C-alpha cells in the first residue's frame, strides 16, 4: 500500500476501530432508557444506501483491473449481482451469481 506509512495505516485501523465501537456503544451506553428522535432515525435508515452505491458506481464503470477502461464482462457481472440481490434479498446468492456471471462472461468475451 504505497502512499501511506505503516504508522499511518495503523492509525487508520485504530481510529476506525475506536470510531466504530463508539457508534455501536453510543445510544445503548450513553442514553440509558431515552429514545432517539424520529427524524434522526429517519436519516440513519438511509446511510448504507447513501454511501455504498456511490462508492461502487465508479468501480463498476471504470474498473481497476482493466486500468479504468469500461469492461463488458465486469458490467454484466455487476448487473447480475444487483439483480439477484434484489430478487432474492440474499447477499450470499448475489455474490455467487456475480462471480459466476463474471467468470462466464470473461470466458465468453475475453
Amino acid at each position, binding site marked *: 500500500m504505497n502512499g501511506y506509512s505503516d504508522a499511518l495505516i495503523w492509525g*487508520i485501523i485504530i481510529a476506525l476501530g475506536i470510531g466504530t465501537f463508539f457508534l455501536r456503544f453510543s445510544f445503548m451506553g450513553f442514553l440509558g432508557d431515552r429514545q432517539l428522535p424520529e427524524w434522526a432515525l429517519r436519516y440513519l435508515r*438511509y446511510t448504507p444506501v447513501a454511501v455504498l452505491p*456511490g462508492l461502487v*458506481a465508479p468501480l463498476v464503470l471504470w474498473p481497476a483491473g482493466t486500468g479504468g477502461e469500461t469492461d463488458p464482462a465486469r458490467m454484466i457481472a455487476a448487473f447480475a449481482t444487483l439483480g439477484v440481490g434484489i430478487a432474492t434479498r440474499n447477499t450470499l446468492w448475489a455474490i455467487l451469481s456475480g462471480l459466476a456471471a463474471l467468470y462466464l462472461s470473461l470466458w465468453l468475451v475475453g
Partner: protein
Amino acid sequence: MSDMTANGTAPKGTIRAAYWRGFRHGLPFLLVIMPFGLLFGVAATSAGLDLAQVMGFSVMVIAGAAQFTALQLMGDQAPVLLILAASLAVNLRMAMYSAALTPHFGKAKTWQKALVAYFMVDQSYAMAANEYEAEPEMSRAEKLAYYAGVCTPICPNWYVATLLGALVGAKIPPEFALDFAVPITFLAMIGPALRTLAHVAAAAVSVVGALALSFLPSGVGLMIAAVAAMVTGAQVELWVARRKAVRE
C-alpha cells in the same frame, strides 16, 4: 416461564437454552461470513497490507462494509480524514442498531454493554431484534445469552476467514479477476437493501452524484453525494407517508 423476574435474573436452564437457541440462529450466517471474510483477507493482502494490518482491521473494526470502504479509498490514495469519514458513515447504521437495542440493554452493566457493542454486526442485531420482539417475556440475562449465542459462530469465524484469505490471497493469479470481487460484494449488499422507493431514490442520487462529482479529489464527491442521498431518502419517505395519509 413464570419463574422469571424482570430484573434480569432467570434460572440457569433457561439462560443456557437461550444461548443455544441463539447459536442455532447464528449458524446459517457462516455461509455469508466465511466468503466475505475470505474476500477481505484476499483484497487487503493484494492491496499491500501486511498480515498484522489485515487482521487488525478484522479484529478491531469487525464491520465488513466499512473495512472494504477503507481499503478501496486507501487504494485511491484518498486523504485519511475522508477515509475515516466515509467508512464511519457506512457504519452509522450501527448507531441505529444501538438505539434499537437500548430498551433491552440500556440498564445492563457497562462491561456487558461494551461486549454487546463490540460484537454488534448486521446479523447479530437483526436476529436479536426479531427474537426480543417475538419473545417479550425474556429476561435481560436470557437476552444477553441469546445475543452471545448468535455471535459465537459468527464473530470468531470472521477473524478465521480473514486470516485464511490473507494467507492464500497472495497466491491467486490475476486471471481470476479478483479486483472485481470487491465491487461484487458491495453490489450484493446493496440489492437486498433496496427495500422501498425511498431506498431506491437514495441509491440513485448516490450513484449519479458520485459519478458527476468524480472529478473532485477522491472521497470528496462521495461524501457530498452521500449526504444528498440521505436527505433524499428521508424526504421521499416523508412524501410517501403523506400521500398514503391523504389517500386514507
